[in-house]
């Protein structure tokens, strides 16, 4: 209960911080629309020249873009800003304010995961779902409720995997405090905006098994088009659980290393 109340307070304070600068709202609006525009145009330019690519057509790729935008928005809603407040530029590790975090009688991983929210990302999520909606409408096939259910489950599992991978990248900051690992993740995550099938075999393996960002977008998109099987879904859920356990362990290990190694 205490932790639930804390999350509420964190979200509320973050909103107050966000609202403190009015100009940012317009700016955020611009960024979101530009992001959407360039994403859609990118896909359009590609499929202007070809009809299908490894089995993916314009509508399918658009649907994937919708999932990508939604997943990105989910990341930017809470986990992204919170972990970035720890490990990012001008974050607690970078500016030496981690001491204050460590001295709180709160689990550090909880703090690092929920402390900062960016509620504007809810708008981005709406945009992403909008793109997804348009794409599925264009695909036309009447979507059965079980497809939607599979999609939702896959999306949530994808969110969990996203959290786990982001947490792992964040944990690396404890070994290399000056290195912006979360930016590295940003780069890799960009690759998830296109279907895995578009990439050469070796990269597909990397993006599935090493840094599984590919799964986050491809499986939910596949759920909508009926490509994703129940087995794949189960596998994704299992992977999510394993990854969360593993990266949480990495985070704690990194924290204790940081405490013994730093001054």
């Amino acid at each position, binding site marked *: 209960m205490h932790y639930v109340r804390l999350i509420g307070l964190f979200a509320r304070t973050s909103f107050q911080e966000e609202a403190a600068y009015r*100009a940012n709202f*317009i*700016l955020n609006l*611009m*960024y979101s629309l*530009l992001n959407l*525009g*360039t994403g859609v*145009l*990118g896909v*359009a*330019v*590609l499929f*202007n*020249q*070809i009809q299908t*690519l*490894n089995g993916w057509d314009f509508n399918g790729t658009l649907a994937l873009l919708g999932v990508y935008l939604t997943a990105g928005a989910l990341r930017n809603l809470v986990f992204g800003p919170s972990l970035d407040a720890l490990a990012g530029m001008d974050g607690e590790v970078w500016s030496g304010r981690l001491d204050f975090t460590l001295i709180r009688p709160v689990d550090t991983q909880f703090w690092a995961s929920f402390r900062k929210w960016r509620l504007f990302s809810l708008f981005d999520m709406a945009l992403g779902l909008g793109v997804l909606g348009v794409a599925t409408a264009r695909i036309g096939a009447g979507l059965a409720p079980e497809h939607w259910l599979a999609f939702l489950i896959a999306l949530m599992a994808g969110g969990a995997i996203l959290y786990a991978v982001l947490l792992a990248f964040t944990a690396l900051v404890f070994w*290399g405090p*000056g*290195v*912006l690992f979360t*930016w*590295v993740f*940003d*780069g*890799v995550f*960009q*690759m998830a*905006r*296109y279907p895995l099938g*578009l*990439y*050469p075999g070796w*990269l597909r393996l990397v993006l599935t098994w090493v840094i599984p960002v590919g799964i986050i977008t491809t499986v939910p998109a596949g759920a909508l088009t009926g490509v994703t099987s129940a087995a794949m879904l189960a596998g994704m859920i299992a992977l999510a659980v394993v990854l969360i356990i593993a990266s949480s362990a990495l985070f704690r290990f990194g924290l204790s290393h940081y405490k013994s190694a730093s001054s």
Partner: protein
Amino acid sequence: MNSDFSQPHRVGNLRGGVALVKATWASWVQYRSFFFILAFGWMIQPLIYLLVWTTAAGGKTIGGISRGEFVAYYLVLILVNQITYSQANWTVGDLVRYGQMNRLLIRPLSPFYENLSSEMAGKVVYMIFDLPIVLILALIMRPEMHASLRDLLAFIPALLLAWALRFFWGYWLALLAFWATRADALLALQDSLVFLLAGQVAPVGLLPGLLRTAAEILPFRYMVGFPVEVLTGQVETTGLIMGFAVQAVWLALALTLTALLWRLGLRRYSAVGG
């Protein structure tokens, strides 16, 4: 202290400039992981599109470009993009925003040198990261280059003009910081336009109708895509002449805007107080 900042500054202090570049290099090397990660980030989009287009081209050609030629195009793009990338906004913009102009204007060294030295130092550090990766990718992906002698000769001036254009274009945008504390929206828009029209999403030749026309008129293609197209043999002689002409026109405009805004900005800066 005479605060008549409208006096022209000593551009001729070469020794001071060289020392500044050396010192900037040393400090940049310290933070190399930071800059390597930046370079990595800039490389991702071209890489994604390299993979997408090469998969799309497969065994045939798209718009006359083969798989191997796409590889060549994007690998060159990574390097050219890095060489021409302008950091003026961070350096100049921040200087104005955080009131550090005084420090620079007092020195007997044109503030211009400060930007130049950080640009050069930065690019060397970035290239240390980029070159090995591009080489490895070239070995793996087997690019195909069809550059004639004319292309090779035209590439260098095209590249230099592209760098100058991007540098001064970024500079005048950054100088807007004298009037509006945050020109972020403009810069975000600029980034998107560069992405779409400068040859990253696709070589300009492959862009659909309206976008293609826009790309050939606006300056963005001439900051990145044009030299790349030249080197990979995608531009015919008439195209070369037209390209250089458009580049020159935009560069002249950028230079004018930079000089104008600098003069106006300094006047306002010393009137308002730094």
